[in-house]
Structures are given as structure tokens and as C-alpha cells.
């Protein structure tokens, strides 16, 4: 399979009153055509910034990007604004976290849905309407003709997220970023939306990057998983391999903090003690050192490099789990 998107040494920093905030610190990732990648990490680990920066959506003057982003053979880090914009919608598209704020409240679903079709694909009003109905059918919205005339507030949360997916899919993107697509929804709807995304990905032969803080979400729906911590990829492997052989203590801690039915309900929930390091104050050692249960002296002083095992399993730890230490 060919590489669709490849990030190399991607760094994103923001100017803040407290100094340079490093949100993404040197990420290398590769997404193959037709592949789905889950990006997992806690709040503030740089997941959203990573996905927006890969698309080039961070345009505020305080954001700085270095490193390269190559999409479909085109280097986006050196391309002109217009060239980057041409890849949006038709090449890469994004589904946003909160479907309430990501839809314009004063415009009907139909006009928001056909907007991309008419502007980017140059469809006529009639063609765009026909395609909009098809798209709404694709995302399993009942009675699509009626839904076209509704305002976002007349739809439920799940329906709105389906509309967002339909808008993102409108121009047949090759790569779909789903930025926490289920966080604003309740659990039963979450499962439906995730299943829908999985099905659509196979139907339309897209690649997908699923950004989430929930390992349970990515488990059944992605080919590979990248775990992020403090702006770095700390573990990267095929989904099955990752769950079978966790190497990074942080991933283990994440897995342990998923509530289980067989646990005593009266006990304390498992948590990862401590908090993310201050992203404006880079530390010399491992970013997870202050919270790691297996921390040793070396972790405090030396920054671990990303190690690569034979089966493609990558991890960023001096003393990985499952290896004699």
C-alpha cells in the first residue's frame, strides 16, 4: 500500500504569555491508503493540534509549524495557501468534536451540505441537492428530503453528527480526520456513529485518523494505534499487537484506568496520578517520568528515543514492559 499522509518531525509551538508552548514535539507518523489510525491520549496531549496541523488548519499568527507534511505526494509545508486549500474537502476532510458548534445555527442542513458540493465540485443546484440526499442516505438519516430543510437545532445530537459526517464525506476525501467524533454524544449513539464510520470507511475506501481519549473507542475500529503523551508519540503499533504486548507504561496506565464491570464498585477508580508536564517548560528526561510507577534514575535525566521492534511496534521508553529490566 502506498503512503497517503506522512508527517516527519512535525513540531507545533504556540506563543503564549508564559513563553513557547510546545503542543506537538517532533511527531513522525505515516498513514497508508485505506488504513485507519487511532490517535489516543489524555486531554492536552496534542491530539487535536496534531490533526489540525496535519491539515494546515492552524492559521493563527501565534502558531508555528516546523517539519514536513506530505499528503498524496505533495509537500504541504512548502505549498502555497491555495494549493493547501485545494486539498481540503476533496483530499482531506475533518469531522469535528461538537456537532452543535460545528454547524452554522442559522442555515438549513441542505444549504450547508450542498455548499461544499457546489463550491468545490462545481455542481449545479439540482445536482447538489440530489447528491445531498444520497449523502444523507449514506449516513443513515431517515427521510433525507425533510432533513435538508431543517435547521441544526431541530436535529438530535446523533443526527447532527451524522450530518457533519455527510458534510465531510461530500467531496469524497481520501483521508478523513475524525476529531473525537463521539465525545459529545451518549454511549449508545457513540457505538452507532463509530460503526457508521467503520462501515463508510470500507464502503468508500478511505483512510481515517480517529482521534480520541478512549482506548475502547479505537480498539475495534482501527488498524493501528498511536498513543500520544505530552506532544509526542510514545507508542505505535498495530491494534492487536498493542493490546497484546503493551510496552509503554503510559499505555498500561491508560488501560488500567478504564472502569471494569468486574471491579468492586465501592473501591476507588484507577487513575493516573499527577498531571501532564507544563508544555512551556521542557524537561530533560522522559515526559512521563513524574507519573510513572516504574520510574528509575535514567528516566529523569535522559530523554528516551523511539525504539522500533521487528514487528513494527514502536515505543518511547528506557525500560519497556515485558522486557527483563
Amino acid at each position: 500500500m502506498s503512503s497517503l499522509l506522512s508527517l516527519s518531525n512535525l513540531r507545533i509551538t504556540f506563543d503564549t504569555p508564559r513563553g513557547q508552548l510546545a503542543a506537538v514535539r517532533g511527531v513522525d507518523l505515516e498513514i497508508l491508503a485505506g488504513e485507519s489510525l487511532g490517535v489516543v491520549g489524555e486531554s492536552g496531549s496534542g491530539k487535536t493540534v496534531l490533526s489540525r496541523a496535519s491539515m494546515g488548519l492552524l492559521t493563527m499568527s501565534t502558531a508555528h509549524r516546523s517539519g514536513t507534511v506530505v499528503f498524496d505526494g505533495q509537500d504541504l509545508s512548502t505549498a502555497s495557501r491555495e494549493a493547501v486549500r485545494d486539498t481540503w474537502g476533496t483530499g482531506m476532510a475533518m469531522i469535528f468534536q461538537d456537532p452543535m458548534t460545528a454547524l452554522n445555527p442559522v442555515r438549513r442542513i441542505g444549504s450547508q451540505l450542498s455548499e461544499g458540493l457546489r463550491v468545490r465540485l462545481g455542481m449545479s443546484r439540482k445536482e447538489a441537492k440530489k447528491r445531498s440526499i444520497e449523502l444523507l442516505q449514506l449516513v443513515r438519516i431517515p427521510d433525507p428530503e425533510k432533513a435538508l430543510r431543517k435547521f441544526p437545532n431541530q436535529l438530535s445530537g446523533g443526527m447532527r453528527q451524522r450530518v457533519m459526517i455527510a458534510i465531510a464525506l461530500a467531496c469524497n476525501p481520501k483521508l478523513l480526520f475524525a476529531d473525537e467524533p463521539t465525545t459529545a454524544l451518549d454511549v449508545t449513539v457513540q457505538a452507532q456513529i463509530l460503526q457508521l464510520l467503520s462501515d463508510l470507511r470500507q464502503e468508500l475506501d478511505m483512510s481515517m485518523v480517529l482521534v480520541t481519549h478512549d482506548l475502547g473507542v479505537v480498539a475495534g475500529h482501527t488498524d493501528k494505534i498511536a498513543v500520544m503523551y505530552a506532544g509526542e508519540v510514545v507508542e505505535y503499533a498495530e491494534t492487536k499487537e498493542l493490546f497484546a504486548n503493551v510496552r509503554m507504561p503510559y499505555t498500561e496506565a491508560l488501560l488500567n484506568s478504564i472502569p471494569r464491570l468486574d471491579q468492586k464498585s465501592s473501591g476507588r477508580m484507577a487513575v493516573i496520578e499527577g498531571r501532564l508536564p507544563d508544555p512551556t517548560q521542557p524537561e530533560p528526561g522522559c515526559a512521563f517520568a513524574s507519573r510513572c510507577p516504574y520510574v528509575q534514575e535514567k528516566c529523569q535525566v535522559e530523554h528516551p528515543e523511539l525504539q522500533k521492534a521487528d514487528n513494527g511496534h514502536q515505543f518511547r521508553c528506557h525500560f519497556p514492559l515485558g522486557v527483563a529490566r
Partner: protein
Amino acid sequence: MKFKQLGIFSKASVIWLGIVMFMVVFGQWIPLPKPTNFDIDAMGVGLFDSLKHPLGTDSNGYDLLSNVIRGARPSMLISLISVGIGGLIGSTLGIISAYKRGKLDYIVNTLFNIVLSVPALVLGLALVAVLATNPDPNIEVPTSRRVIVIILSLTIVIIPILGRIARGATLSWSNREFVVAARSMGMKDSQIIMKHIVPNVLPAIYAVAFLAIGVVIVVEGSLSLLGVGIVDGVSWGSMIARVRGDLEYAPHSMIVPVVVLALTVIACNQLGDVLRSQLDSREGRL
């Protein structure tokens, strides 16, 4: 929103503004004594005293009703034109600068603040003094020139008022995720502004524009009262100015234009409020 659903005050406002607009358009064809003819047999006729002069006459015998009707056109047209032009320029500047941010925003906002810091009356006085007066007091300045200068000064007053409203609303709306979403679909900035920002910002602009019409009517009246308005005593403000010496003997000749002016301003404010609450609530209305 249908007329029936409006409250009693809003209904009255709609009706009143309808009457005023009728006076603006058809006023000159209403069969009444000519506003410029004085009735020498009926000077200072009180309110409702005579069938011939329903609202009475002032101390010179001018019919008040026909004067009020004739005054509607300059008063309303001056305020509608200046709010229209000023609103268009102001909101365009405000929306673009708030969307682009950075230096442009800083410059535009500073200009707005500078203009806002000059009181409307002072600006109007200064502009009329500079642009619409002749050094030789014997040569009359044409009325049309005065009208244009007054409209110009009121437009300058309106630009920053509506501009700042548009800027503020755009700042909050352009941070919404649907703007990022539209960009992520490859829309151009101009398309995003026209299709996503403007429809959301318009309610706030409409509401304040209605309030601004009221403000401008008052400012135009004040300019006339100070003697720099339209000289021939045709607008409501200049009617008030003309009769202010008669307040002792014929108070109604001042009360009539004052009440008409006040009702118009109140009606504009009322409708501005209704419009805003109506257009604004679409997001929350289920």
C-alpha cells in the same frame, strides 16, 4: 413572526411607523392647507379647536398638521439614508477587520474609537461650518448642499457605532467551529464571510440600526434646533427650532412636533428590540 403575535407596544410601533412612512411617501398629496401658507384669521389656534386646522396653528398661523406631515420626509430620509450608508460601510469594515484580525483590525478599531470620541453634535456643527457655509453671509448656501453635509456628518457618526457592533459579533462568531469546518472543506475566506459570518451577524446589526435611526432623528433635530440643520424649517427638528420662542403663548405648536418625533424614536427602539430578540433566538428555539 406575524403581526398578530406582537405585543401591544410593538403593534402600536408598527402602526405608527407605517403612518410616518405613509407621510413620507404620500404626504404632499394629502388635501390639507399648504404648510407654507399662513392663515391670518387663525393664528395660534389650539389643539383640536378648529376643523380646518385639526392640530391647531402656531403663532404665525401655519397649519401644524400639514407641517408635521411635510417634516416627515426630510427627517426620515436623512436618518434612513445615513444609517443605511453608514451601516453598510461600518459593518463591512467591522466584519472584514474582525475576520482578518491583526494589523487591519487594530487600525480599523482605532479609527472607530477616534470617531466615537467626537460627540455627534460637535462633528455635525464643525462639518456644516466648514463645508456648508459661505464666507459671504449675503450668499445663501443651497439647501441641497446642507442636506448632503448633514447626511455626511450623520453617516460618519453611524459608521463606528454599527462597525463596532459588527466587529464584536464577528469576533465571537468567527471563533465558532463551523467556520473552521467550512475552511476544512476548502471554502474561501470571502465565501465563509458571506455565507457563514454575515447571516449570524445581521440580527445584531439590524437591531442596533433601528436604535440608530432613533438616535439620528434626534441628532438631526438637535442640529436644526442649533440653527445648522435644514434652514427652511421643514424637518421636525427645525419646526421645534422655529416655534421655541412661542412656548409661552402657544405651547401646543412645540408639543406637536416634539410628540411626533418622540413617538417615532420610541417606535424605532421598540422594533429594534423585537427584531433582535426574534432573530437572535433561532439557535435556542426548539
